[in-house]
């Protein structure tokens, strides 16, 4: 996730607003849209270039923009001690911050076939999947069933429960990050099942999208996260 500290910019903005250089305040970090490590069309035919471009440049960008706005409003409310505005902003922060967090993971969860997309997981993660789900096919079947059954918008996840030291499959609604289902859950693979993730190509047939997305899932990245978080 690309984070750019705009502390100095915030400082100048703060000066303009308060017209006093002697007040102390925090600069807040705002966010920018991370670049994709592959071209928009590189995941075809599993996911169309048209979808990738709109999904990244419009949907994810909107989450970033709105998250930054919410953070600036939050900063002001915190500084003023305006508790009710702070609380009121929580849903905008969850929606848009969650949208940014989830999509940043998603782009890393995907890779073109010529960069390892679709190659089954090896090593510790591969073994853990076999242990917990019987086989990769078993995991895929479970995630596809849960993803297809999700009503409305949301995500289906493969996660690591760091505390219980086991893999879990779970879903979240809207843009709730996986951690909202359990503080010790680390996302390994997330699949976006909001309609915007597949509609232009698969229309109402979400199961076809779910069947095909595995061809571009980047298990190398998931394995890295797993190895790091299961120490």
């Amino acid at each position, binding site marked *: 996730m690309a984070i750019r500290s705009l502390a100095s910019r915030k400082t100048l903005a703060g000066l303009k607003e308060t017209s006093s250089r002697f007040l102390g305040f925090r600069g807040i970090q705002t966010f920018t849209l991370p670049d994709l490590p592959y071209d928009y069309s590189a995941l075809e035919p599993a996911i169309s270039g048209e979808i990738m471009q*709109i999904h990244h440049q*419009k949907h994810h960008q*909107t989450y970033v923009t709105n998250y930054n706005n919410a953070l600036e409003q939050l900063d002001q409310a915190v500084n003023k001690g305006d508790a009710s505005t702070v609380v009121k902003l929580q849903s905008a922060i969850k929606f848009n911050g969650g949208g940014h967090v989830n999509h940043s993971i998603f782009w890393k969860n995907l890779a073109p076939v010529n960069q390892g997309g679709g190659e089954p997981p090896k090593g510790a993660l591969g073994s853990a999947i076999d242990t917990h789900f019987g086989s990769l096919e078993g995991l895929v079947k479970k995630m596809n069933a849960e993803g297809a059954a999700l009503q409305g918008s949301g995500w289906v996840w493969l996660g690591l429960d760091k505390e219980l030291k086991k893999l879990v499959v779970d879903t979240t609604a809207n843009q709730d990050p996986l951690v909202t289902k359990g503080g010790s859950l680390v996302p390994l693979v997330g699949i976006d099942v909001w309609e915007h993730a597949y509609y*232009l190509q698969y229309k109402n047939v979400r199961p076809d999208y779910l069947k095909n997305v595995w061809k571009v899932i980047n298990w190398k990245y998931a394995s890295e996260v797993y190895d790091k978080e299961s120490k």
Partner: protein
Amino acid sequence: MAASTAVTANYVLKPPPYPLDALEPHMSKQTLEFHWGKHHRAYVDNLKKQVLGTELEGKTIDHIILNTYNNGDLLPAFNNAAQAWNHEFFWESMKPGGGGKPSGELLALLERDFTSYEKFYEEFNAAAATQFGAGWAWLAYANDKLKVVKTPNAVNPLVLGSFPLLTIDVWEHAYYLDFQNRRPDYIKTFMNNLVSWEAVSSRLEAAKAASSSA
């Protein structure tokens, strides 16, 4: 208890009251073919399968909706039943050559309860634009007052004790083929070009009649 009137209760996929291309260019034939022909059809078909052999079999859709809402802790048949109801209500909320400002009593009531049509337009627009994720925005009637309501996923004003008068579907499948991510453009197009104020007026009459006889 709020009751719907115009939406059929027999698990039938009723066609919209106009041909599938009649709302062009504001809502494409392709959208209607998928939205009505696939999404709405699936809710109806799945509802039939789901209630077969259960105590809900043979009950009206309204009954199923009200009995499976369960104060928000939804029982399994809620989604299909409510979505079947919502979509039929949605097709009938639109008409070719629709949109714009209503007149007569409806306009008077909108002006009474929102101070102006423009304020209502803003509020309805905002509700539809800010319903995060999937859902619906509504004009509803309760306690002799008009109000704008937004609901998530399949929830509708029936379960909130109000009479629905108008709805816009803001699930992404409702607008993605025509507008992609541009939900605000879709909402404006709906308000300016598609709303059937005749349908809203007749629903309002029914709601008032039902309220006064309650």
